[in-house]
């Protein structure tokens, strides 16, 4: 059972206090988008074995969303960061690079 730190309230909490929200950093495509763009937004997911960026909500706590960079194979957590970002912040990317050697 995962243990993730909610960056909004600073607590490391167990999975039962959280609600998962799927892949992070999706770009919304609205009414003027092409079928391909809309498909990408609605349906196509990386489902990575390895480094994965995902959405979590601190459902039983502060109620806020946050994002986590996690390894789906080893369950390693590279870090959590606020939901108000369109891409992983530099310090998270650095940490992933440091730990994966990539």
């Amino acid at each position: 059972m995962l243990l993730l730190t909610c960056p909004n309230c600073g607590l490391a909490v167990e999975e039962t206090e959280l609600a998962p929200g799927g892949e992070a950093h999706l770009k919304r495509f609205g009414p003027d988008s092409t079928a391909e763009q809309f498909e990408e937004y609605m349906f196509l997911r990386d489902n990575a074995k390895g480094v994965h960026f995902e959405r979590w909500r601190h459902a039983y706590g502060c109620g806020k969303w946050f994002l986590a960079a996690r390894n789906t194979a080893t369950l390693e957590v590279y870090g959590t960061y606020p939901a108000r970002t369109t891409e992983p912040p530099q310090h998270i990317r650095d940490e992933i690079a440091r730990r994966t050697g990539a």
Partner: protein
Amino acid sequence: MSRRLRTGGRRIDRSRPVSFTFDGREMRGFAGDTVASALLANGQLLMGRSFKYHRPRSVVGSGPEEPNALVSIGEGARFEPNQRATVQPLWEGLVARSQNAWPSLDFDIGRVNDYGSKFLPAGFYYKTFIHPRPFWKHVFEPLIRRATGLGAAPTEADRDTYAHRYAYCDTLVVGGGIAGLVAARAAAAAGERVMLVERQELWGGRAPTDGATLDGQPAAEWVRDSVQALGAMENVTMLLRCEGSGVYDHGYVLCTESLTDHLAGKSGPRQRLWRVRAGRVVAATGAIERPLSFAGNDVPGVLLASALRDYVVDYGVSLGERTVIVTNNDDAYRTAKALLAAGLRVPAILDVREGMNSPLVNEVKGMGVRVHAGRGIARVHGDGRVTGVSVCAQSGDGTVLQEIRCDCVAMSGGWSPVVHLWSHCGGKLWWDEARAMFRPDADNPPTGADGKGFVSVIGAASGALSTAEVLTDVADTLGGPAPEVEDIAEGPIRQVWTMPEGAPHKLRAKMWLDYQNDVKVSDIRLAAQEGFESVEHAKRYTTLGMATDQGKLSNINGLAVLADRLDTTIPQVGTTTFRPPYTPVTIGTLAGEARGVAFQPLRRTPVHDWHENHGAHWEPVGQWRRPYCYPRPGESHADAVIREVRNTRERLGLLDASTLGKILVRGPDAGRFLDMLYTNMMSTLKPGRCRYGLMCDENGFLMDDGVVARIDDQTFLCHTTTGGAERIHVWMEDWLQCEWWDWKVHTLNLTEQFAQIAVVGPKARAVLEKLGGMDVSAETLPFMAWTDGTLGGFEARVFRISFSGELSYEIAVPAGQGRALWDALMEAGVEFGAMPYGTEALHVMRAEKGFIMIGDETDGTIIPQDLGLDWAISKKKEDFLGKRGQGRDAFRKPDRWKLVGLETIDGSILEDGAYAIADGTNENGQRRTEGRVTSTYYSPTLDRGIAMGLVARGPDRMGETLRFTQIGGEPVAARIVDPVFFDRDGEKQNV
């Protein structure tokens, strides 16, 4: 005859006798006994019958690995089957029963399965029961279900309670043997928060039994001092009778603590589930001895050498007077020493190895015991118990060289480290060929959040064999000082997987691997021969290791046999997956407090008690309970619904609508936000007014609906469905936090802040006017308006909205006032004929009006356009959630199923979910369909069946007659009509 010895038994207290019964017979044991040791002390060697062949069985082990000695414990509401007699503590008055035997343990009819065992090899079920098919269901299955199995299921609800406890520590040490104690002391001395759990009732593990010496002290004294030192430290929590059951992600560990299983007087919770989050887990879980595979190795009286040592030293009981020891390693010689010390005889040690002269071997030889080198057992004699063994050369084909009379056989096939906790979360193993064991591979541990290993395995569990090795291993792994011990060198083990090596089939068919599931060497070989070469396949084909003991004794021996048959190596074959829990955990322990009224949260409105006191028949709606109807004495539910509908349409009905979601949306961008959330335009709504709105997901599918009230320029109150309140609030916050985070909007879920009561019917205005204080006239408060004020002394918000087509007000007050308002309305309503109505009357009335219901007309694949709700979808807005989704080609197809009303020709009521039958069949040969019923009711207002449904091109086919399926009956004809059945012009609500 097994019996109690005159002396010995470090775990028992001879001054405290304990009475118990087994199969109704009165027996006596001592405090500290297990059921198994007490049964042995009473001469009861036979403890059960095997699963498949009903062979007589006794203990083979002395701990949680025991496959044979499963008994039922307790009676009535405390009855529990399949308990291992080897770990069940004895208590005064304990009632134990044998299992899987009829009519009695001693004379069991099912034993015929054994005599026919050559017809029941691995895969027998699969092969035999495929043809002829009906035979499986009607002949074989009932027979087999009766003939095989373990204990009976309890017939009463468990009367015990169970508790959970969340715990946090830096280091969790599982296993309180000497390795665990040293580890706990090292971690505690470093200032860590330490938890130390031990599944047995005593600390120290095997060391005191095996007579080790630490720091010049006998093991028992060293253990006592260590426990005392640890107990004095505030940063250490120590638990006995607490088993490490499973290790999960990120240092989460479940431990099960037994609180009353050893007590006669039971009060408080029976067991406690510890939900531990540990920085690191140290598994000091020891090792389990392996049986040897020789013919008749399951005859009562044949057991593990270490187990026999435990019975003699720990409990002061023997299984027999003359014990033949058969071994492939030195450790079994300790059993010889223990037996001799207890005054029992060891006529021979059959050691498969040649030329052994290690100190232990020489010591035992020096005590006058005859050691037969290179020898093994060809077969064990005896049926209900051992009478002797035939000796053969291990390297031969089983030719008998000698017969030895004995009544007990102690076997040792080497040791398997208990690596379960290492493996549960993905720790890898390596095969140590010299020691013949799988050991934890320290380079491939289970990884935690930081990517580093979070489980260490120490002592015997990591493959250390002697006390000296164990302590060196602990010091190497964890640091800290190690106690001084004498290092006694042991001779090497010799791998032996069948005895003798060249045993013919006849002998292999009597060599048990998995005692509990009756899997033999011959079965594994058959599986390999038939192509089940993967260990996971062979396991499932033969059921090896799939019994309640999960193959603790059998798995390694089984896969060695498989490797041999496949002519490959043991590591090549690999192990099956280790899964938690280590031993079975009773469901009650996992459920904890979640049982009875606390099984799940039941949400109650402020008026709940009134409903209950007035005979409400409940309908679960999510976790809420809402009154379905209020049947009067002698009245059916259907009749109650009819009465409630008529009374509401003709006079006055009251509905507790408190469960409906109420979400406050506030801020400068609130209008813009709601325009994105709802399909229709909300920003143009005037303060003081209400508007019905639809919410779709990004697929375009309708997900919720409700009335939005504009409170002021920046504030809206959004009503949702009962089930949607939390979901829609989360949905709103998701968009605000993760997509439009620069928009200035706050949302607050106020569902529970307010009680809301619908006052419905022609007399609705009259009753509010009687309460007084507010102008609720048609002019001041027209349809789809709201106002704040004081109504009958209540600070209230009154919405003029209707879900029934009647004149209707919904009155919201703070929840604490809800019950008082309800009482006031009921009282004031007496003269107007007020009656409460439930959810079913609500449904009937909304269906009469053709209003859709989320979850009836929608199922997550329906867009609003399917339901004729195009009027509620803005054409002006550039964007809203679901707009792009609804624009997809599939939704523009003309033959989509769309909402219509349905009226049966004969006035009967269509079945819910019934399909409209079309001509022909589809590619699967099934009848084609062209629609289905989504809501169907008897309408008291129209005195006929009415229904709504989705029909292909439905709105274009008004007046057409369709045929709808009926379960077990002829299709029913129904005409497509307008879905609004009643008061199409809304004259009743607009008064």
